């Protein structure tokens, strides 16, 4: 019997693949890696690219998955791919963080003007109601 290892490919949003494999390749940061069962423990980042899984005891074609980066953990009897759901990078993350921060500040500023607006509107409604009452009283007086 050929040696096999358990392969799990998961992303934060879903379990993408889980099954036994004879051979596995992934685009690691240092270059494409091919892994057979009983590989030494390895932990590496992976680049966006294709992951190929040769299924165990089957004549089916290899499973090919696209991952947009992530982490790869190799144990002698199993492989875990922690796939990202979006392309990541230090500078991209940084930009996103800045954007989120700016948005929060911006929205807070706007909220203030919105609140002023709401308050002004409430005052206006009140004033109109008062006017209507005065109008009514005046009519009755005549």
């Amino acid at each position, binding site marked *: 019997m050929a040696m096999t290892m358990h392969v799990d490919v998961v992303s*934060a949003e879903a379990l993408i693949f889980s099954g036994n494999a004879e051979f596995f390749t992934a685009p*690691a940061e240092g270059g494409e890696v091919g892994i057979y069962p009983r590989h030494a423990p*390895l932990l*590496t980042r992976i680049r966006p690219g294709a992951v190929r899984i040769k299924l165990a005891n089957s004549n089916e074609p290899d499973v090919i998955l696209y991952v947009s980066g992530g*982490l790869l953990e190799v144990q002698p009897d199993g492989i*875990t791919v922690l796939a990202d759901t979006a392309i990541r990078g230090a500078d991209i993350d940084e930009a996103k963080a800045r954007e*989120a*921060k700016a948005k929060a500040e911006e929205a807070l500023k706007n909220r203030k003007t919105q609140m002023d607006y709401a308050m002004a509107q409430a005052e206006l409604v009140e004033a109109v109601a008062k006017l209507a009452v005065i109008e009514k009283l005046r009519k009755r007086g005549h």
Partner: protein
Amino acid sequence: MAGGKEIRTKIKSVKNTQKITRAMEMVATSKMRKAQERMRAARPYGEKIRAVASHLSQAFVDYPHPYLQKRDSVKRVGLIVVTSDKGLCGGLNTNALRLAVNKMKEYSQNGAEIAVTTIGNKGFSFMGRNGAQVISSAVGLGDTPHLEALVGPIKVMVDAYIAGEVDEVQLVYTKFINTMKQEPTVEQLLPLSGEDFKGPDHDYNWEYLFEPDAKTVIDDLMSRYIEALIYQAVAENMASEQAARMVAMKAATDNADKVIGNLQLLYNKTRQAAITKELSEIVSGAAAV
């Protein structure tokens, strides 16, 4: 006495409202099913990443990660508050926000400042209104949570933690227990307790090969772990939201039924009274002749 026509109009308007609440109930039911599936789909990632981190903590202990180190004094606390974007979901957001406010009070009594990251519109406007210091936010997430939308706001908080501007990070969200029960929860996010990574795991003693180097990989792993935890909370919150909305809308529909029943009764009584009055007038008129 209210005229027959007025009551009829009122009945019609209540019926229209009921149509809306019934439709919303059905929509929430179907959305809840999907949200629950997504919540379950997110679980394996969290489990796997925790397993990897636990292997790591056993195999490699030379690099004590800042996420795992407890700070001596807590001067500033970060709060990540997860709420829904839309209302009409019963007490869901109110309860979560009340919990957040209580927590904030508790911290400020101990002399700690508070910085808030809000996820979801409701929490954002609530915190903004109450003058909390909102450092980042994610709003308008839609029905499907996407990690991509959360990365930025989370990074702001985590960066603040690393820079020492925040000494502790707590996560507030509504846990989905079942369709009828959702519970507002506070969980400590940072520093991570080392307990999370210990488990009845295999005792591998092999040293890992790291590529490019240990620090980078561990940093990446840890930040993804934090994101996974928050993503899971958001997914759970969304399932809770739909469930709460379903229940709230069902109650509204049932109430509308009751109101319609009462109004119908009142209408019939009014009609009957008018007829009786008319009859007695005719009879007394005839008697007079």
